[in-house]
């Protein structure tokens, strides 16, 4: 089959998402950010809400999200994205507003903004990419860095006696009455991507129905920060990140999801 035949519309199995710009992604090869970007843009495209959506980019690896997402966006100071989103949504209750944040941005410097936006039940969506490390600044310890995990500021592994424990902020915000939908996903397999996309769609549908805040954590990898090739990083993520940050729904329709009790 010639190339010209392959690119005929009827033969295509994959096309670039309409709402992603032509600019090549600046993320490291194998990084999950690009997939998360694409999925959110697919959902906005499919819902036909581009003209009513405002996104907030954080400080961190995804600081340039506005270069890749073909929607109106604001770039926030480090950690302040939920405050910006609050300001926008309060003035434009009919618009769709989401923040896109990393673990340092959302769970360290922006903890207060995160918790209070969740607690007020701002009618927004928060996408929280957790790779347990500060990628942009060169791989320093994040609030979500696992115990014993090596980073450039914990070169001998995170000592919790010295540096505190990894923060499960997703479980924390699920306790707050203002959150309507809280879930943890990943984007390292086609199945995981489909599940995340379903959740992302729910986050925007919740906004349409004025249900309150939707909070989706995406546990992701950082090949460069973890110093692993992409496949190994994904395997490491499954073996080490998932036991501490288990994927799945935590709160749906404002109600905590009951986990099946373990047999004795």
């Amino acid at each position: 089959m010639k190339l010209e035949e392959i690119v005929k519309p009827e033969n295509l199995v994959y096309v670039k998402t309409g709402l992603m710009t032509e600019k090549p992604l600046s993320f490291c090869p194998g990084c999950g950010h690009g997939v998360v970007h694409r999925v959110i843009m697919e959902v906005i495209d499919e819902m036909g809400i581009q003209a009513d959506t405002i996104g907030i980019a954080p400080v961190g690896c995804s600081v340039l999200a506005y270069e890749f997402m073909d929607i109106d966006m604001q770039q926030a100071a480090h950690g302040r994205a939920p405050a910006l989103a609050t300001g926008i949504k309060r003035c434009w209750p009919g618009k769709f507003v989401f923040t896109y944040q990393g673990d340092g941005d959302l769970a360290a410097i922006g903890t207060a903004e995160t918790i209070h936006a969740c607690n007020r039940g701002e009618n927004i969506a928060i996408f929280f990419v957790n790779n347990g490390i500060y990628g942009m600044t060169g791989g320093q310890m994040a609030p979500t860095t696992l115990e014993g995990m090596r980073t450039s500021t914990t070169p001998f592994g995170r000592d919790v006696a010295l540096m505190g424990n990894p923060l499960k902020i997703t479980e924390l915000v699920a306790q707050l009455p203002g959150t309507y939908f809280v879930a943890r996903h990943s984007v390292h397999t086609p199945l995981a991507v489909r599940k995340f996309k379903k959740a992302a769609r729910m986050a925007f549908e919740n906004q349409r129905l004025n249900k309150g805040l939707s909070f989706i954590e995406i546990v992701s990898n950082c090949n460069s920060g973890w110093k692993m090739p992409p496949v190994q990083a994904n395997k490491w993520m499954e073996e080490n990140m998932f036991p501490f940050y288990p994927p799945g729904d935590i709160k749906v329709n404002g109600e905590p999801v009951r986990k099946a009790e373990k047999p004795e």
Partner: protein
Amino acid sequence: MGQLLFTVKKWMNENISAMGEIKLMKGNEAFAEAAIRSGCDAYFGYPITPQSEVMEYLAYQEPHKRTGMVLLQAESEVAAINMVYGAAGTGKRVMTSSSSPGISLMQEGISYMAGSELPCLIMNVMRGGPGLGTIQPSQSDYFQTVKGGGHGDYRMIALAPASVQEMSDFVKLGFELAFKYRNPVVILSDGIIGQMMEKVELFPQQPRLTEFDQSWATTGKPPGRKRNIITSLDLDPAKHEKHNEKLQEKYHRMCENEVRFEKIGCDDAEYLIVAYGSCARISQKAIKLAREKGIKVGLLRLITLYPFPYVEIGHLAGKIKGILSVELSAGQMIEDVRLAVEGRVKVALHNRMGGMVPTPEDVFHALVKSFSIG
């Protein structure tokens, strides 16, 4: 007593929304009432003495019922200024207010807003510092306001009200200037102006704008329009230098067009007092005392602190024997006065700090002593 207070408040509530009437109000209350009347879309704030009446007044007025204005108490000044950032980025008329320690917390957001060229109105009801300082009035945030405060090369127009009337009027003016230059504007008030009660003529209710320039704002990208981005980031240094040059050109235009001041008794003056805000009010009495004693003193009351009236002060310096800078700080504004004077006449300082305030007699005696008059 409680019932009486409630009745009085209810009466105020029902009567204040009428047009152009004269009221006896606190500076902070006049500011809040003017916010609603100016057609402001949203106020985000956090309580701090001595400006808490602003949000209290707004809350009692229920501005969402009067004009649809949004009012939200944020979790911190940091969050408040960033809520302002978000809403301002959609083209709305947004404001916040605080006092010195709270304004310090807002500096990051203010720098981002200047970098992203967002219009907004910020009031600082100054109290004494440094640190937690005191809740008493001060003017020690002059440098922070006119020289930057946050990081990076940016400037903001700073308006200095000297009466409750101006606490009201400058809201309207401040929004006009903020949108004219797409830049934050600061109303630099102090604990005296914020807390004192005076007669104020309130301007009539202006409508909130339902149609406004959205060409640059992030309100959702309709088909056919390029996406709008609100950001202060540019990783390309050559492009970022161009952006900085554009900002500087804007600040230059402010200096060309927006210098404001009031001259009181300057025509025949042999000595000049330069002051703003509460110190200008005190100095106004002081020049009266001096003139009763036959000393010809004028007052240059600064209305804009940035842009600073360098030209006017330089012009006056050529005609007088000495200038007294009166301020509630260790001597901050005096540095700009000296820059304007360029050594042509003696410039002296009379100041109080830490929440203390001079009397008109103090200022008069300082004038006599500084220039060995009589």
